[in-house]
């Protein structure tokens, strides 16, 4: 009898399978996540009867493998097997992982969402995606229900049942063999949950994208209140508004939409923080931070 894997071992094993071939320090993949779903072939499994938990991911990019995908902690389940499949076509990549599990105790419990860490190709920011969770209602098996029936009757019925079962198994095995020889059908989920309507599926507007970038710049400036950080943030803001390097502030302010309002204040404040004298730098960085906040607010 195979030794049962404990919960942490299950997690470690599955995680290592999911991340096979990836180094610890590997950079995140750049993906456009279109669907990320957790399902099972039954939501009411029976005790000691194996069933399948399926993770399905679809991304727009064509990639050879999916890294940094973490399956949920399957603490109340025994892992029997794991099969992964990555298919690419012109529409992108379909990743499907089927985990065969069995549960030994009746009751209700929920499998937590699977997670994926990647760079969102829509805006270039690192993000973590979650599937739906999976509530299961585990029923006791027929053999356990029958344990209270009288022994004589049980033996009699058992003999009949055994004969029927053997017959059914033979017929089933024959049919299954024929079926498998013709086509190996994929596991079809009994009830596939609808993919979560994730916000990432909607491409962010130009204004939202710019606001996120400005907020990132603000984080940088708050984390590092130095001249070099101010210069980097100034360069980043110039890139955001499409101004090439080598222009002066005057050139940038003459660009459409740059010469007025919060953006103008921001550009002037960043110019000050990049070129003012050392004693004024802290105040200049404060002003630049406030100007970044005001500009980010104006984009909402």
């Amino acid at each position, binding site marked *: 009898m195979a030794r049962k894997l404990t919960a942490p071992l299950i997690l470690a094993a599955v995680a290592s399978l999911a991340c096979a071939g990836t180094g610890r320090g590997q950079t995140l993949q750049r993906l456009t996540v279109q669907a990320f779903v957790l399902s099972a072939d039954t939501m009411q499994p029976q005790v000691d009867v194996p069933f399948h938990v399926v993770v399905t991911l679809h991304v727009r990019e064509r990639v050879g493998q999916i890294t940094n995908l973490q399956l949920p902690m399957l603490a109340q389940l025994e892992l029997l097997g794991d099969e992964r499949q990555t298919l690419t076509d012109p529409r992108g990549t379909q990743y499907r992982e089927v985990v065969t599990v069995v549960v030994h105790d009746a009751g209700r419990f929920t499998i937590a969402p699977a997670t994926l860490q990647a760079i969102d190709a829509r805006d270039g920011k690192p993000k973590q995606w979650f599937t739906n969770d999976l509530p299961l209602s585990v029923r006791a098996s027929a053999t356990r229900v029958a344990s209270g029936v009288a022994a004589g009757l049980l033996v009699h019925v058992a003999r009949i049942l055994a004969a029927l079962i053997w017959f059914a198994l033979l017929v089933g095995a024959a049919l299954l063999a024929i079926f498998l020889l013709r086509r190996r059908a994929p596991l079809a989920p009994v009830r596939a949950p609808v993919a979560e309507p994730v916000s990432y599926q909607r491409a962010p507007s130009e204004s939202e994208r710019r606001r996120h970038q400005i907020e990132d710049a603000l984080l940088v400036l708050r984390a590092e209140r130095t001249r070099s950080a101010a210069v980097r943030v100034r360069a980043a803001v110039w890139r955001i508004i499409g101004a090439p390097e080598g222009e002066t502030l005057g050139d940038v302010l003459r660009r459409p939409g740059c010469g007025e309002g919060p953006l103008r204040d921001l550009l002037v404040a960043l110019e000050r923080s990049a*070129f003012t004298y050392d004693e004024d730098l802290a105040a200049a960085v404060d002003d630049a931070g406030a100007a970044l906040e005001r500009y980010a607010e104006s984009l909402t």
Partner: protein
Amino acid sequence: MTVDRQPGDLRAALAKTIVGQEGVLEALLLALLSNGHVLLEGPPGLAKTLACRSLAAALEGDFKRIQFTPDLLPSDIVGTRIFDQRESRFATVLGPIFANVVLADEINRAPAKVQSALLEAMQERQVTIGPESHALPDPFVVMATMNPLDSEGTYALPIAQMDRFLMKINVGYPTREEELRILDRFAMADTQPVRCVATLDDVRAWRAAAHAVHVDEKLKRYIVDLVAITRAAQSVAVKSAGGTTLKAADLIDYGASPRATLALVFLARGRALLDGRDFALPDDVRAVAAPALRHRIGFNYRLATENVNADVVIDAMIAAIPAP
């Protein structure tokens, strides 16, 4: 900055009298703040004298105008010693150069000896007459003019002499709207005298403030790069009036001197102060680059034969250096 009255007030006061000519007014103020002198090239009748006179009046300073002619002598500018028969001794008579604002009109009409006397006084800020040395007033700004239209009977200033001017401004004709405003202001109404808005002490304080304006390391490197490219402009391409593409280096005999580097820093500081800042920006350098460089670059004969405007070459070189 601890000065109550700001240089911007002076500019506003001058703008109430002078219509347009923002470049001339700014050049005058920058020269004042940077302790330098200005060379103006442009046709007559463009309010150069009025600008100088107004500046002097706005500062309660002295103004003198010297018309340079071929028969002018150095003593006509700096002064001379005459024998006082009643006192039986030589007395010194100071020349018109002893003023806060001096207009040297058509400086290229006087021979080299006279030009040299003026330029030496500009540089040394003192004049020696006989055995005595006399310090020039402080502030002391010379605005020299040259007429590009009438070059007969003129003595061109050598580059070495031109280098002593902090900047050279090409004065152009006013726009149609500005000319209408000139009509309204000077032909249809009584002109108002310029109001005094600052004192000579204020100017000295502004100069000290300008000297303290911060110039970042990035900006210093930008300035050095701008001057350096005038000496090695192989990578800069310019187009002639006929559409031919030329290398800027082929049009230049020699580039700007280190005095140009210093001038760019002084002028950028002055412009920052005029704008109310105590730190200079790339915009300040970019704005003063052409006036500070154009009279310090030695162009060769190909500039004329290929029909290329010198300012086009200078602008191309400035544009070739990315601002920090």
